[in-house]
Each structure stands twice: as C-alpha cells, then as structure tokens.
C-alpha cells in the first residue's frame, strides 16, 4: 500500500471543530442500550413471574425447564447445571438472541461509538492511540454473525408459536392485550431479523447475477427494503421485547390486569 506523509496531529479525546451537539447521539445510544442490558439481565436472573395465563415472556422462550405448562423438559433444573449458580431458564437461551444483537452490523457501529468512543462521533477525537478494528482478535469474532442469524431465525419461529399459544385460554380461543403485545413483538423482531445484512447477503447478495432467479431477486428486494430501516427496527424490536417481558411480569405479579378483548 502506498505510504503517505501526513503530519500526525492527534486530537485530544473529544476534540472537534463541530459546533453541533455531536455527543447527543452516542449518549442516547449509551442510555438506551444500558437500560435494556440492566433490565434484561435483572429479568433473566429472576427466574419467576415470566408467564401469565397463556402468555410466556420472550426472555424465557423457549422454556426448556420451568414451572409453567410450556416447559419442554419439566419443572426441575437440569442435573448438569452447576449447583453454585442461581438457576434461571432464561440463562440457557438468551445468549443466542443476545449474540445476534451483539454481532449485528448496526449495533456494532452504534456501541463502538457509545461505549468505546471509537470514535465518539464522526470527526471527534478518540481516547486511544492504538487501533485494531475488526481485523484482529477479539473483534474478528464478529464475523460469526451469520451463525447467530441462523439461531435468531429459529427463535423467531418459536416466538411466533408462542403467539399462537397465547390465544389458547382455559375457556378456548381468545385474544387479550397480552396476545397483541406478543404479536407486535414478533412482527417487530421479524422486521429486524429479516432486514439483517448477513441475510441480505445469504439470500442473494452473494451473487453478481441476482436476477438470474426471479424468486431470489424478490427475496433480495424484500430484505433490502427492510435493511434500509434496520436501525429503526433494531430499536423498536429491542423496546418491544423488553416491554413484552415487562407486560407479562407485571400481569403475573398482579400489578397490571390483562384485558381479554374477545
């Protein structure tokens, strides 16, 4: 690669000629992600109040072990689980959707700025001199994103099944506010997952002749449409998945009353 003689004038951390409120966006991302991480960790560690009637919190779905009738393997925790750790069924599964979001191209760009100041924002001075990017370990592991995508697609099917289960009340078929909350959550998660950059590549972007197959081209165009709104759906689905858990939790605690619509 050609060399260049640019006088290395390294600005101080936060130094910039920008006169706008450049700090606002990374601050908002920092607060938004922090609130979600704190809440989801707390909710995942509770191990209770994650189901109410036919509703199951998305943080606990699929419920592998638990006291709800949806549990795949019964109420007892697995024998291989370390006894010194507090058990919560959410801990067995949340690594998959968490990994999908952690390695998501949108979130990467956002949290590198908000949590690592790399850079704090465009044309704003950085705190560190060294830089490895995603070229070397550990961030080269971000390339595993497509494998988390495969898992996220499986989770999407399971959450859609939960919506169907959420229509099965003791007296028969019905729809409550909780059913609609879980349905909205699946729709938003679907818009986020089906707009994934890796999916866009795998479904057609890998080819230089996408139009050779009309089905492939149609799929690629649909994913590209959602991909253009990836940031919006990333935030909307993050909010909806947290709110879905909160709704089920507060209903289970008797603080909120679920309204049966029909």
């Amino acid at each position: 690669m050609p060399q260049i003689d640019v006088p290395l004038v390294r600005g101080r951390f936060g130094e910039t000629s920008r006169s706008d409120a450049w700090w606002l966006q990374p601050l908002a991302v920092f607060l938004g992600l922090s609130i979600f991480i704190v809440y989801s960790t707390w909710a995942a560690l509770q191990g209770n109040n994650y189901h109410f009637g036919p509703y199951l919190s998305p943080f606990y779905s699929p419920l592998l072990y638990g006291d709800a009738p949806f549990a795949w393997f019964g109420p007892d925790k697995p024998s291989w689980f370390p006894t010194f750790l507090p058990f919560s069924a959410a801990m067995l599964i949340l690594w998959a959707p968490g990994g999908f979001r952690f390695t998501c191209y949108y979130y990467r760009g956002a949290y590198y700025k908000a949590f690592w100041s790399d850079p704090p924002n465009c044309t704003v001075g950085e705190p560190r001199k060294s830089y490895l990017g995603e070229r070397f370990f550990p961030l080269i592991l971000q390339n595993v994103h497509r494998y988390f995508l495969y898992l996220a697609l499986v989770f999407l099917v399971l959450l859609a099944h939960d919506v169907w289960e959420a229509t099965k009340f003791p007296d028969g078929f019905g729809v409550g506010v909780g059913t609609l909350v879980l349905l909205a959550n699946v729709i938003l998660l679907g818009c986020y997952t089906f707009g994934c950059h890796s999916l866009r590549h795998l479904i057609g972007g890998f080819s230089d002749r996408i139009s050779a197959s009309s089905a492939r081209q149609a799929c690629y165009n649909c994913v590209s449409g959602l991909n253009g709104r990836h940031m919006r759906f990333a935030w909307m689905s993050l909010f909806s998945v947290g709110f879905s858990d909160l709704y089920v939790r507060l209903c289970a605690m008797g603080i909120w009353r679920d309204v049966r619509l029909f």
Partner: protein
Amino acid sequence: MATATPTQAAPAQRIAAGQKTVTFEIWRGEKGKGEFRAYDAEVSEGMVVLDVIHKIQAEQAPDLAARWNCKAGKCGSCSAEINGMPKLMCMTRLNSLPIDKPVRVEPMKTFPSIRDLVTDVSWNFEVKKKIKKFQPRAPDAPDGTWRMRQADADRVQEFRKCIECFLCQDVCHVLRDHHLHDRFIGPRFFVYSAALEMQPLDTADRLADLRLRDGIGYCNITKCCTKVCPEEIHITDNAIIPLKERVVDEFFDPLGKLFRRFRGE
C-alpha cells in the same frame, strides 16, 4: 439518479432578505503549519460557502488558496471541513449553518496540507492503481459483446455516482485518527472494489486483497462515510458490509464453504 443538492436549512437560520455580515474563520498556512484567521463577509440569501471564499479572495485575501472547479457538486474539488464536518464548499448553503456564530472552514485533515484549504490527495490515486482492474469474462455473443440484465447493472450503478471528492476518506477515523494509510484503503476504494467485485461480467477475485492488503477488517462500521457522501451513496450498507460478507464467505464460514462444495459451486 439522485443529484447532490445543497443542504437545506433549519428555518431558524434562514438569512433574511438583504445582506448580513458573517464571520468566517479560515485556516491559513502551508504544509500543516498555520492558524485560523477571521474574515467578515457580507452574505446574502442563496449563497454557498464557496461563494464566500471567492468573495474573501476578491476583496480581502487574494492569496487565499482554495481548489474548486464545477461549482455544481460534480467535480469533487472543493472538499473541506466546515464547522468540523467534511463537506463540499459549493454545496453547503449558508442557511444550513448557524451563521450567528463564526463559521470555521479548514482543509481536510486526512491528507497532507499544501496551502490554506488545499490538500494533496494524490495518495488516493496511488491506492487506486493497486486494485485489480476489470477482467471481463469471454464475450457472450459471436460479435464480441456481452449480455447482462438491467437489474444486475442497477446494483453497481450506485457506486458509479462517486465523484471522488474524498470526503469519505477524510471522515474515516481509521485514516483520520489512526493514520493507517499503509494498511487501509478507505471507504472510497471499498466502493470502487464493490463496483468491480459485484459487476456481473467481471471475473477477477479481490477478496484476499480486501482482507489482507486493503484492510477491510479495520472498518468498524461507524457509517460516517455514508453520512458525508454528497452523492448519497450507501457506502456502508451497499458496498462495505456486502464486501465484508463476501470475505466471511471465503475465510470465516467453514460450514458455508462446505455447503457450497457439496453443491458443486
């Protein structure tokens, strides 16, 4: 095809009919050494920053160096940093800036300073020479011509809008702050590589170069390049990330590679 238009303003900053005096702090100096000097200029509605630079040249500082050519956002010559953001001077309307405060104009920081607002961007042309050129497959027809579908041509057409203003190179922190010019080609040349790599007729393989020599792994997806592109090319989403995914196909996805081998690809 989208046409670059001057940035529209917040209503509160619109210049009232008639003239107004605005202070411009312009970087003056040579080879990286210099200072900001303040110039008061009479401005009127519809002016862009390049108009003010010309006015200052004509009335106050005839030795002020600034590169420009088309004044229509198509030649990519008048790149500079205006209030800290890389922009084309000819496409930045004054009513898009908070002109109640001094407007700061300085040269791009990623490239060596020559004088005042002029920088030496020749490194970019050297980088371009290193990228494998277009290598078409054998012609499809006996008359030596090729056939390709419009939809496939459309995909790479976006990248052809690039005017090589190098604002994306300027804003990229890998070049700007970390000076990895010897290991990283920058957003402009990922766009150039994508235009070749996704071209249906092209047969050259640039993936190993992109990973090892061109340093695509250094990009951490800040999207600053997309933000400053005056041609509104979706640099990150349509060029860099698809190239990263192709590099993953080739070097970081053993299951995918196995699957493709079974399919005989």
